[in-house]
């Protein structure tokens, strides 16, 4: 058996489990915070632009008779954060509204949506399924919700399906004898989008004219009919102003404009400001925890002065004492930061699979790959280890400089 510095180090760490656990907890807390924020906002597993694009439209232009038929438990569109899709209705307008609206100053995107019908498709979903037509070329509200980026443009004969509908990408979906290929699946939106099949606009007109799709009670759909025109305003444009400009060329008995209850601009700034917020929160956590850790380190050094005096009496040099105190703190910081990162990662993955992150932040996150976890955890590890060493610099220096004789007598200054 050989005596070495590791024996001494582990012995003194083992000796005070309570206090060391508290220190490790502090370190873990800091690491967990920084790592979690990094995962959320660093862009490693999140596309901020996707977040903005998923906010949907700023305005929806609908027929004057339009009232949203909502599924139970759903928020009316005026109150949802994202205006992604119009609700089923038989109030229709003509697609040439797009041409007029598209030229209005302050409007950047316009795209039509057509509600075809609501069908029972037991093979696909226990709930009734909405059939919608969209224009893939101009659509800016539905495709951003795709689970995985498409490998080709969404074309004729293909459909996009909501998250509650069954069917793998590439498989066929049977809509009352009409076969389509699923080109993409959408992430959960917690809205009626989750129960919707989106067809190409031309396919939508085609199926609408087929027998037994549109109920006889509803007015028949002819090409050029749409249920809504979704509008995104240009950056910096005033939402209310654009709304009145859109309404102006049309009679109130023909169309009405639904405005999202908040404009995209501040929201996008909010999201783009998140990395800055990350910095603020991390700084706050560090600033709050630093004095605590430094205090514990100073207390430990004070408590151990007799022991350190003894080591000095046995011939330990100042440098050895300094390194001993520093390495103890470094070991605790390393253990703490690794625990913190692991806890944080588990929490992130759990919250993400439960969909809580998505509902909270209105954006979706990928499950990070191992190399991404390692890369993302670096700042947390570096910060915590830096805090560990900086906070024990003074105690280590003090320990190495104190008078060994006074220290042994328990009077170290």
């Amino acid at each position, binding site marked *: 058996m050989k005596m070495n510095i590791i024996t001494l180090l582990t012995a*003194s760490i083992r*000796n005070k489990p309570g206090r060391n656990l508290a220190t490790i907890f502090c370190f873990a807390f800091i690491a967990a915070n920084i790592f979690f924020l990094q995962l959320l906002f660093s862009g490693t597993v999140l596309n901020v632009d996707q977040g903005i694009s998923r906010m949907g439209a700023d305005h929806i232009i609908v027929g004057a008779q339009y009232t949203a038929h909502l599924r139970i438990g759903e928020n009316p569109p005026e109150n949802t954060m994202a205006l992604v899709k119009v609700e089923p209705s038989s109030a229709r307008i003509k697609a040439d509204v797009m041409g007029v609206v598209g030229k209005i100053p302050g409007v950047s995107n316009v795209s039509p949506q057509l509600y075809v019908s609501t069908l029972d498709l037991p093979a696909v979903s226990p709930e009734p399924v909405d059939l919608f037509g969209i224009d893939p070329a101009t659509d800016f509200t539905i495709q951003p919700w795709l689970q995985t980026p498409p490998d080709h443009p969404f074309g004729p004969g293909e459909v996009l399906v909501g998250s509650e509908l069954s069917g793998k990408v590439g498989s066929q979906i049977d809509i009352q004898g009409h076969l389509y290929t699923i080109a993409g699946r959408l992430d959960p939106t917690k809205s009626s989008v989750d129960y919707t099949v989106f067809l190409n606009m031309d396919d939508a007109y085609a199926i609408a004219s087929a027998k037994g799709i549109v109920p006889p009670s509803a007015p028949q759909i002819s090409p050029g009919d749409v249920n809504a025109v979704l509008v995104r305003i240009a950056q910096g444009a005033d939402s209310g102003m654009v709304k009145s400009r859109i309404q102006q060329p049309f009679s109130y008995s023909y169309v009405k404009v639904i405005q999202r209850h908040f404009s995209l601009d501040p929201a996008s700034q909010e999201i783009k400001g998140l990395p800055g917020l990350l910095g603020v929160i991390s700084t706050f956590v560090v600033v709050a925890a630093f004095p605590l850790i430094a205090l514990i380190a100073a207390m430990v050094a004070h408590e151990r002065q007799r022991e350190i*005096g003894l080591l000095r009496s046995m*011939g330990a*040099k100042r440098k050895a004492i300094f390194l001993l105190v520093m390495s103890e703190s470094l070991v605790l910081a390393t253990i703490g930061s690794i625990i913190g990162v692991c806890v944080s990662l588990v929490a992130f993955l759990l919250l993400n699979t439960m969909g809580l992150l998505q509902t909270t932040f209105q954006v979706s996150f990928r499950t990070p790959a191992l190399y991404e976890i390692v890369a993302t955890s670096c700042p947390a590890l570096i910060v915590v280890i830096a805090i560990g060493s900086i906070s024990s610099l003074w105690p280590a220096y003090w320990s190495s400089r104190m008078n060994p004789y006074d220290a042994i007598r328990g009077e170290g200054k």
Partner: protein
Amino acid sequence: MIEIIGVTKSFSTDCSEVRAVDDVHFTVNRGEFVLILGRSGSGKSTLLGMLSGLTRPTAGTILLNGMDISELSDDAISELRAKEIGFVFQLSGLILTINALENVMLPTLFCPDYPGSDSRAADLLTKVGMSERACAYPSTLSSGEMKRVAIARALVNAPSLLIADEPTGDLDEATEQEIMELFRQLNREGTTIMMVTHNSDLIRYATHTYRMTQGNLIKSDGALSPRLTLEPRTNVNDKVSS
């Protein structure tokens, strides 16, 4: 080996200034067994602390092997302590977080060219009668047992100078005898010993005895036992190398 010239140590406390050691002059030669007696508070421990460079005198010079220790760097004194000086503190100086054997081995950590074998620490524990408690932690030992472990630790680096502050204070007479015999044997093998005690019976082991009163060190002659004065001291000195 040790030369102390006009050494004074004073402490200023809130209410008064204490001169723990007051203008002490004395010399200890290689191979001597020096015993210091004195009443509580007379400055014995303070003097030993200064000898080992653990604390610095307020005034005066301490020469160790001809070197003024106040002129040595802290690292040099540390090295000197690691290689040359074994210290037994008045109050048990064990590290509480490691067991008895690890405590005994601890000084080897700071002695890069540790002279002993791997089993030396265990052998020393046997010598002080503590081999059976090698794995015991200090908190489970009696104060006499702790003292004996501390003595073993002071000897592990085979120091040429052993400074012992009441090493037998907590021991029964029989164990005290054993420890003193061990010291005597070490002394005969060339270790210089400076020891503080309250037990004047022990002066028969010493080659020189001093008394300390109120910071002053006085050579004590009358108390020296006749048996010891007859001991051939030259033999002891012959054995000392360098």
